[in-house]
């Protein structure tokens, strides 16, 4: 087979590579399948074509941070888990909150995480996320002790089905957290603290006979 002229054959090769791959494949990796020079735009067209072919089936081709990969649709998980009860653990709040802070505030030091959570972060929490390959140290802060700066990895994005950090669920607007019952008319983010009423505290501050 010297040249690939048959588009259909090209498609079969691409599909086969993606079905057997053990990690997401980028377009530039997929190019390496062929000795011929295939344009990225053509590959992208075919990938979208394959994606369309699989609609309505149990498996879907998705585009992730590090490339394209086939995965089973989530709705089939209940069936599949009857065959494989083993699956990765569901992490505790300590782990998930640490992950969220790293994801949304990166790069952060362990000290930053601790000051947001108000508690110390145990080594095993960091270790769990490092071992899962979801976070990594990307440098050191130039302060005494040179603490490591943590950031999320591509694998984190891939495993959550994201292309980029911009796909993370949006943060709750701090303004909407301020008043629990009434809908705030306008959110004065930064000035909010200046408007704190001081006087109506009097009642509460009186010593109370118990």
């Amino acid at each position, binding site marked *: 087979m010297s040249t690939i002229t048959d588009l259909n054959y090209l498609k079969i090769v691409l599909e086969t590579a993606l079905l057997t791959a053990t990690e997401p494949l980028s377009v530039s990796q997929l190019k390496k399948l062929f000795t011929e020079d295939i344009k990225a735009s053509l590959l992208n067209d075919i990938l979208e074509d394959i994606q369309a072919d699989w609609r309505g089936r149990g498996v879907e081709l998705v585009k992730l941070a590090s490339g394209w990969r086939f995965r089973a649709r989530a709705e089939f998980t209940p069936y599949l888990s009857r065959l494989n009860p083993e699956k990765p653990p569901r992490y505790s709040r300590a782990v998930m909150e640490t992950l969220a802070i790293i994801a949304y505030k990166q790069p952060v030091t362990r000290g930053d995480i601790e000051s947001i959570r108000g508690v110390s972060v145990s080594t095993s929490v960091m270790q769990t996320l490092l071992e899962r390959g979801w976070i990594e140290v990307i440098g050191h802060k130039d302060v005494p002790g040179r603490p490591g700066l943590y950031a999320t990895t591509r694998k984190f994005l891939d495993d959550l089905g994201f292309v980029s950090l911009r796909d993370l669920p949006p*943060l709750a607007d701090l303004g909407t*957290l*301020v008043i629990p019952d009434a809908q705030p008319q306008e959110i004065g983010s930064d000035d909010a603290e200046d408007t704190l009423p001081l006087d109506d505290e009097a009642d509460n*501050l009186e010593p109370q006979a118990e």
Partner: protein
Amino acid sequence: MSTQTTPADFTLTAPELPAGLPIAHVFGQPVLEVPQDLFIPPDALQVILESFEGPLDLLLYLIRKQNLDVLNIPMADITRQYMSYVDAMQGERLELAAEYLLMAALLIEIKSRLLLPRPQLDEEGEPDDPRAELVRRLLDYEQMKLAALALDKLPQADRDFAWLAVLIEQGAEARLPDVAAVDLRQAWLAILSRAKHKRSHKVEKDELSVREQMSWILRYLSEREYVPFEELFEVDKGVAHLVVNFIAVLELVKEGLIKVSQEVAYQPIYVRIAIS
């Protein structure tokens, strides 16, 4: 970082959150409310405390539970309630208490500054509310707490969906998988997460060396019929080793895996595999 883009149909129902969350599980039943009178049975207290992620989380809970305005925290009430938790906690979990005590000190400081007749002014001449910093921290924390819940709800690889794994037969000789120590730890996490009741299968180093000796003794005995008791102990390996070995023997007897017997007092003791 931009947080503008919204993935398809994701919505945060932020402010209601603390209400619906069970704050603890006592005997498997979700506890949704801390008793109003704040009488907490001592057994339940530990469970409740473990369900809070720290002083900020507890404070936030107290504020949200009563639907209070975060910007206008009634310091006296909140401090009093907070202190009743901390008091109850101190006897039980001292190591937890340090961070909670720090927060208590902060609450009392804020309260006392509010009592001063004239509020301090900041650089711009505005009244400086001592609660402002606390409010900022509470909101920052709550934002991250909600983000964590939102992340946890997203489908995660392997937990909620599977990758494809079609085989490629490579003619070359089959390579054996590599396994590293961390893989064993991860495997154990998965077991724990699936365990019916979160029994913590804690395995400490001491216990491990006992387990190692148990395996060694069984191996040793399996090749022999009767072994004199002393033969199981290598004196030159030191006292620690002898103690561990002895515990291993006791453990094996307890599990019914070996039999230790002595015909008559002061006669040699023999050890053998427990097979009738």
